[in-house]
Structures are given as C-alpha cells and as structure tokens.
C-alpha cells in the first residue's frame, strides 16, 4: 500500500478552491516504482508516479507547477532515490510541495532555500537534496543565497520555476518579469529604467567554477516538456555522481496573472519568454 494521509481541502489565500477530496481507490506500488500497476489487459498506459501523492491540486488551471512537480516525482522514481531524497520547498505558490510529493520535504524561509539545502547536504552527504524555487524566491529575495551556494559549488540541485510573476501574492512584478509586462505593481508595464532588466539566472551564475550543470527549459509544448524532464533527470544524476551544483530553469505558464487562457499562456511563453530567455544547456559538466 502506498503511504498516504488525508489532506484537508487546500485553500489559496484563504479562498476555498476545492471541495472535499474525492474518495480514492488505494494504489499499489510496483517493482518499477509506479503506483498504478499496468493493467493485465493492457489498457492502462499512464499513471501517477509513486513519489506523487494522489491528491487534488490547489494550482490554478493551466499552471505549470503541477507538471514540474510530476516531473520531479517521475525522475525520483526512475532514479530509485525516493528513500534518500529530501526536497526544500520555497515561499510562493510551490510552498505546499509537501502536500504533493511522497517523500521527505522541508519548508524554508523566503529565499533561504539554498542555504537550508546547503546545511542538509553538508550534514548528510548521502541524501539527494533539491530545492524547488520560484523566481521571487530564487532571483529576488534569495539572490545572495543562490549566488554563494552556486559559487561554493554545493552538490545540490535547484529546480527554478520561472513564470515571470509573483503568483502567491497576487501577480506582482518578479525579477524575471519581461519588459512591458503588466503586473499588479507595474500597471503600465515593466520599464527597464527603474525596474532593471529581467534577470537571466543560469547565465548569471555560469561563470562560477562551482556550477556544473545549468540549463533552461520550457513547458510550452510536449517536446519541450519532455526535454525539461530529461534535464531534471540529468541534474539529479549530476548530484548523485557528485559532479556538483546543478540548476534547471523551467519557463512555466501562469495564465491567472498573465491574464491569458491556458493555451494563450503557452503561446506567450513561445513568443515572448523564449526570445528573451533562450532555451538550452548553458553549462554542462566536462
């Protein structure tokens, strides 16, 4: 039997979004680590990864977090590290990571996530430690922790979800908000004068000898989603093989605060974000 606990309906900023969780049928974990065993009649071809709890999501429709949560869980299953992985969730939309992942997770103060991960990895080098951070957590309030953790070359993995906006607090400007992008705190659109240019995080830390694997991916189409997962896996492998610091940036849709439909949000990634945040591996291990 999988280890599950009932969770209360997850509310977002105090507004109940989901009714009571529907009763679920118990799942089994197979040798491959997949919670839903293949149907003997060969009908089921897809299921939840074992490292992902079977719970309703609190994320908005069209949000990319659910996908990235799932990709992390799939990678953890495929690498067989569920029993030695520890996640650190940020302050922001992904703070409730522990409600979704079925392995050990800690929260961290806003932006201090890489420092917390540093303490964990130094104290228990046998654990596989990753942080899961949004643009505000990583590139605004946590810039000092990011830069010095990267520069020390801590053997941790950072999953950096860049949706160019603060989601949890109501759609304010993020350090990665694009020029001209309208947010709650840039009603006339972000201007480079006064707000600065959107930060390109992997490029920023690429010169450090301590950083080993840096890549930018996107969730705008199935092909890129598949690439993103491969990169996340590579980043974890980098840590398992003690190569060193790895960071995967994921350009992720936020239809709610981009004021777009989920489909238009994907188009916006392609047409607006990717030209500024070019995809691909910025640094790979020698």
């Amino acid at each position, binding site marked *: 039997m999988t280890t599950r606990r009932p969770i209360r309906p997850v*509310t977002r900023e105090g507004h109940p979004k989901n009714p009571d969780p529907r009763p679920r049928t118990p799942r089994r974990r197979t040798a491959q680590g997949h919670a839903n065993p293949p149907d003997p009649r060969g009908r089921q071809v897809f299921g939840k990864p074992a490292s992902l709890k079977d719970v309703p999501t609190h994320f908005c429709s069209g949000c990319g977090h659910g996908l990235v949560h799932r990709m992390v869980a799939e990678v953890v299953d495929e690498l067989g590290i569920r029993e030695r992985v*520890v996640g650190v969730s940020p302050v922001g939309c992904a703070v409730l990571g522990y409600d979704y992942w079925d392995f050990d997770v800690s*929260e961290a103060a806003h932006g201090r996530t890489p420092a917390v991960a540093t303490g964990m990895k130094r104290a*228990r080098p046998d654990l596989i430690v990753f942080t899961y951070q949004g643009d505000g957590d990583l590139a605004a309030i946590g810039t000092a922790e990011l830069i*010095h953790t990267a520069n020390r070359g801590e053997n941790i993995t950072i999953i950096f979800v860049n949706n160019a906006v603060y989601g949890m607090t109501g759609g304010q400007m993020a350090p990665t908000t694009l020029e001209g992008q309208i947010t709650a705190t840039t009603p006339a659109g972000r201007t480079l004068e006064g707000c600065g240019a959107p930060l390109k995080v992997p490029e920023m830390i690429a010169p450090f000898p301590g950083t080993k694997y840096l890549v930018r991916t996107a969730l705008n189409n199935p092909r890129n989603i598949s690439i993103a997962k491969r990169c996340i896996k590579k980043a974890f492998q980098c840590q398992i093989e003690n190569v060193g610091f790895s960071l995967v940036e994921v350009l992720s849709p936020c239809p709610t605060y981009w004021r777009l439909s989920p489909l238009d949000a994907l188009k916006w990634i392609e047409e607006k974000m990717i030209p500024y945040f070019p995809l691909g591996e910025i640094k790979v291990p020698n």
Partner: protein
Amino acid sequence: MNHKVLMCGNDAMSEAAVRAGCRFYFGYPITPQNEVTAYMSWRMPEVGGTFIQAESEIAAVNMVFGAAAVGARAMTSSSSPGISLKQEGISYLCGCELPAVIANVVRGGPGLGSIGPSQADYFQATRGGGHGDYRTITLAPSTLQELVDLTYLSFDLADKYRNPVLILSDGVLGQMMEPAVLPEMMDGKLPPKPWALTGARNRLPNVIRSLYLDVDLLEKLNLKLGHKFREMEQQEVRFEEFNVTDAVLPPRPAGLSRGRHAPAADLILVAYGSVARICRSAVRRLRQAGQRVSLFRPITVWPFPYEPLATAAERAKALLVVEMSMGQMIEDVKLAVGRCRPIGFFGRVGGCVMSVEEVVQEARKALEEVQ
C-alpha cells in the same frame, strides 16, 4: 578526559560545543565573537565536522536550519546586529520545532552600536525576538566555567524540547581569559530524532513546516508550542543566590504579619551575566564593611526565576537591579516582586562596563534609603 584549560570565552564556548556533539557550525564574522568562527574553522574539520563561513548571518542560521532538519547538532553565533538578522531563522526554527544553538556575544546598540560589551539584547533574547508567538531558553553564564557548562547543556536542552536555545554571552565573557574545566567529548550518540528528514525509508514521509494556511491547524501548533514553553518554565529555571540563602529568616512568631517581620538582608542586588560577577565583588566588599547585601543571579533569563526571586525579595528591604542596559531585566524583576519592595536601577550602556566601586556606591545609596 576532563582537563583544565586557559582560554578566552569565545574559544571555550566553541570547544564546549564541539564536546557536546556539535559537528556543524555556520557563522559570519562580527566583533566581538570572531574567535568563534576562527576556532571552528580549524576545529570542525579536525573532528570530522563542517565549518562554513556563510555569506551572511541570515544564510548561516538557515544552514543551521538545514543541518538540524536532517538530525545533526548544529550551531551558529554572532553579536547583536547579526543576531537581529538571525531572528527570522530563529522564528522558523521554533515554528518548525528544530533544535539548534545560537550564541549572542552581545555588544552595544542600537544600530551598529559599539563593539563594547552590553546586555542591551535582553528583551530580544527573552521575548522571542522574531515574529510570532514563541520563546527560547536563554542561558546567561557569568564565568567561563559556566559558559562552558551551559554551552554543553544547551545542545541537550535543544534536543529535549526541539527548540532553539540561546546563549547570552557578552563582550566581556567572550574576550576574557579564565581557567575552565572542559567536559568530556560526548560519545556521539544523539537522542533519537524520528522526525528528521533522513529519507522516507520504511516510514511515512517526514515534513518540516511552519506554514498552516488553515488557522485552526496553526492554532493547534501554537497551543502545542505554548504547552512546551510552560514545561520549560516549570523545569528549566536556573538561578544562583549569593549570600541570600545564608540569611535565613528566623521562624515567624505567631500573629506577626510578614510585613513587620525584620528582613534578613537590607539589599539584594539582581544581576546576570558578566555584571553579576562585578556585583559579587561589590557584595563581598559591602559585607566586609558590615552591610547586609546579597546577590540574586538569574542563570536562565528565560524562563526567568520569578518565584525564587519573589521568595528572596521577602528576605530583603529593597532590591537594586544592575545591568549593562537602560533597564530591561528590571521589568522581569518588577513582575516577580511587584510593589512590595522598592526596586532601584543602576546601568551603564553603550559598551561601558560598571566598576565594582560604582556598584558599591549605588548599593550604599540604596541602603541609605531603606535604613
């Protein structure tokens, strides 16, 4: 093997932490606690531990958070301005119920202040200090030996209650040299920590969190923490009386009210930390001059020894609180004693340390008022 060493306070505190099983120290330089970072930078690798000079006090306390979350004994230290930066982390440590030790080698404030010794962080240390409803056991040693012993104890207390413990040192204690007997190296067996994040092997996943969007759940956490703090108040109060206990009251004659009963001491000085040792010298001098003066010294400034101080105050005509602040602990003394005895105050601030002579003079003034 126990052995007596001559060390400065900051070094002695560091070695006591190592001997208490601390293997992870994260710090950031600030005067007057720089000896701690320097000592730990070579001592930690020597005992198989880790030292990181963090990019800030904020990062250092969060590294402690991480190491504590996976079950290790971890410590950070700083001085007043740096401790202000750590308060966010201390609040999270309390909310997440993680054990850790934080040492404050207090210096003058506010702002950047001075690098001279001070006790101006009493409120911050004893009232939580950061945001939210929490307390931390706060140990205030007055000698190097006590600094060593309390540092050793602090790790056990932190593990026992799953709560950060503060060591309230100051610039005097940190910098002075004095002989102290070091405890033996602990055997390396830490108390079981089934809550720690060690990988979800053969158990449900562990979660370290302080976020509860459901207010009922947060209230439950607050009540649980409150229960823990009450337990600390019941079990962890520590104090010392100097020449108070030897001034035993004779049995009260029947029918005579307590107020008319002749007190056994005319004046009790109340002081903690390095100021208490100055007061102790003042008490000796005054006693030699035939004055009935005693000293009451809280060792835990939180939980504060309210009851013992109230009992001691019954034996005296008046109290004089001596602090290196504009008057912070005096509020706790007033809470303990109420209005039944006059409570005077003498303080030096800004990094200045009072002399024994100054305390003697202040005590004489206070004595004149009650005699």
